[in-house]
């Protein structure tokens, strides 16, 4: 059987796109989307659906696209994925739906992510999405803490069930990691705004500049609301414990990206927030955040941007598309190197990094081969800015003064399979229980928590004395 080639939407050429922060991939046209959807074999046993963490009816929505019924396709997706314009852009499809697609065996999986994005964009741009119907208030109030993907999904589902939902965000803008973390060129902010507007139309009240644990305590929330959902994410960056880590010019990816995405430092001095610029930038890490930081650095005008990763291409956790895009744009990948120390001048400004070369040893607990340093292989690399993108963990502010809210050894809130925490009336999901994971998993958690909150409040269940935690670690 001859299988047609996979279609990918047009992308802006690298030399053009690195001059600005606008989106790279331009999305399918109607014709292209139909053509790509027609490649789908409509398998009797669709592995793609099993490959999706929230089991979107992929086979079903693709069939509708193939027939030109885009709105119908969107309806099918929205049954399980509240934010397809976002997940279509940021899910690691190659290890989920597309990885499971039968055609992947030939290296030609259906472009599920871009099709999902297409229907969501198509309906949004034409104003054809279903207007939400706000049900009558059922008399119960739920607080949702944080405003990222887990919270957005949880809030939307609860609002549709008739709950009064109040969402609390510590920053000045809602959206969580979708606005401070993921750059504009990968996820335009207007899409996140659109989803938040949808929440508001559902009657969700979004309160920015309120930090739970400081402005209002968690105990006060529990007192005031019938239930509380914690979708507070994993916002605390890990730093390398090596000399020179506090030199000027050494950033956490979170700080670097927050300055750029949330504070628009790339428009300094028209916007007030600066970010240190220079010629050479090194990004330490191999995940999506590292790619985002590296590509943002290019757009800021760095002449040379390195990804410094301790393992090899095969062990990188970033989406394949991000790695490809980074390469196309001129990011240089240096594999099998680990930082030893940062070197600065007398003013405390970063000048260079000392690295040591690694070889791969036996697999570690993550199943990936462990990097082993080669003695004597140290060398230095000149850098003006270094960005540490080696992972994040949940923020501890929320938990201060709340010992009953238990966590595992990584600081993730313990929950049972119904997303119940160790504190009565309090549910949690997303990166707050997982550490750094994905948007789609956070969304799935938010959905599960909403269902569980509804069960809890409609059946008047009592809280278990002890929960069977699913994330003890």
């Amino acid at each position, binding site marked *: 059987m001859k299988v047609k080639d996979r279609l990918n939407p047009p992308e802006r050429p690298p030399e053009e796109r690195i001059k600005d922060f606008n989106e790279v991939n331009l999305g399918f046209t109607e014709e292209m989307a139909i053509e790509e959807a027609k490649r789908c074999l409509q398998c009797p046993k669709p592995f793609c659906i099993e490959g999706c963490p929230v089991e979107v009816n992929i086979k079903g929505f693709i069939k509708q696209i193939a027939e030109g019924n885009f709105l119908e396709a969107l309806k099918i997706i929205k049954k399980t994925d509240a934010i397809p314009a976002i997940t279509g852009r940021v899910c690691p499809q190659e290890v989920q739906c597309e990885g499971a697609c039968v055609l992947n065996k030939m290296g030609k999986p259906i472009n599920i992510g871009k099709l999902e994005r297409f229907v969501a964009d198509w309906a949004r741009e034409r104003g054809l999405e279903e207007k939400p119907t706000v049900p009558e208030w059922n008399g119960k109030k739920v607080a949702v803490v944080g405003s990222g993907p887990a919270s957005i999904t949880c809030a939307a589902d609860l609002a549709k069930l008739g709950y009064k939902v109040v969402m609390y965000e510590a920053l000045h803008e809602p959206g969580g990691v979708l606005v401070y973390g993921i750059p504009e060129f990968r996820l335009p902010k207007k899409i996140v705004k659109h989803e938040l507007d949808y929440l508001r139309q559902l009657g969700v009240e979004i309160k920015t500049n309120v930090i739970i644990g400081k402005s209002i305590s968690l105990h006060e929330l529990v007192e005031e609301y019938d239930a509380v959902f914690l979708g507070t994410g994993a916002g605390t960056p890990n*730093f390398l414990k090596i000399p020179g880590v506090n030199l000027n010019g050494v950033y956490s990816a979170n*700080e670097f990206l927050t300055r750029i995405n949330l504070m628009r430092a790339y428009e300094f001095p028209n916007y007030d927030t600066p970010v240190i610029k220079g010629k050479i930038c090194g990004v330490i890490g191999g995940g999506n955040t590292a790619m985002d930081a590296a590509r943002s650095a290019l757009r800021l005008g760095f002449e040379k941007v390195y990804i410094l990763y301790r393992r090899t291409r095969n062990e990188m956790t970033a989406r394949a598309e991000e790695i490809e895009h980074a390469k196309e744009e001129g990011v240089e990948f240096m594999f099998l190197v680990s930082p030893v120390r940062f070197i600065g001048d007398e003013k405390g400004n970063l000048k260079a990094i000392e690295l040591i070369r690694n070889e791969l040893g036996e697999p570690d607990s993550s199943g990936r081969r462990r990097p082993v340093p080669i003695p004597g292989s140290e060398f230095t690399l000149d850098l003006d800015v270094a960005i540490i993108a080696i992972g994040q963990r949940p923020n501890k502010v929320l938990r201060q003064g709340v010992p009953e809210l238990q966590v595992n050894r990584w600081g993730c809130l313990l929950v049972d399979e119904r997303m119940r925490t160790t504190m009565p009336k309090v549910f949690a999901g997303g990166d707050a229980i997982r550490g750094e994971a994905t948007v789609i998993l956070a969304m799935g958690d938010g959905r599960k928590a909403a269902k569980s909150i509804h069960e809890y409040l409609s059946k008047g269940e009592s809280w278990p004395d002890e929960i069977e935690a699913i994330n003890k670690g």
Partner: protein
Amino acid sequence: MKDKGFRIIRMETLAPRIKLMEVEAPLIARKAKAGQFVVLRLHEKGERIPLTIHEAFPEKGTITIVFQEVGKTTFELGTYKEGDTIMDIVGPLGNPTEIKKYGRVIIASGGVGSPIGYAVAKAMKEAGNYVLIISGYRSKEYVILEDKLRSVCDEIIIATDDGSYGRKGFVTHVLEEVLHKDPNWDLVFTVGPPIMMKLVCEITKHHNIKTIVSLNPIMVDGTGMCGACRVTVGGEVKFACVDGPDFDGHQVDFDELMRRLNAYKEYEKLALEKFAKERGLKI
């Protein structure tokens, strides 16, 4: 909340380029304790900057902040008047200063540190401590909040660098004299320019007196998300926003703190010059 912004109900000039602002922020006023701060953003294009709370009035739903016009944002804030609104204010952030009965406490503050010194002195006094305030300023015209400071302590020594008011000399000179005469103090709390805090800590270390410092590094979110405010304390990296802003002064790497405060010097200069030009201000 964001739609409305936070309304300024009082803007007073205390000294050249030093202003006191009272702003409506009921949630923050309800919770604020001595030593805590807020992060504010003036408008859509603004940066987020931390400012320490001077006083909180829960019934009125307001807080006061004393700030010095040093950079673009503080100069711009200085142009705001009663009735104007600040787009975003979040807080109270950071851990409150640890208030308890220590016994005899010295509050050593410098310049715009004294409004924070006031808050801590007041709480320390209420907790039953004997409180001596040593407050230093550049010269007579920079002396601020003197009556208020006097009202929350048992003793006060005001010093000016040029001797135009009170004792002549730095806070550190006065502190040295005080400790030389009588080293029996249980705690020193110090807040002000980093170099002053560093020297205060050197003196108190010599006298073996526990010293709390209130640090003022650069911050972005102020909630533990970015690490802009990291400081080395006892050889460990801490985030001043969530682990501080108070630390054991004898453990703090002040030289690093001062270098980090200079990280954006050129950018700050550029932003301020641009602002001054646009507004026709002399800076």
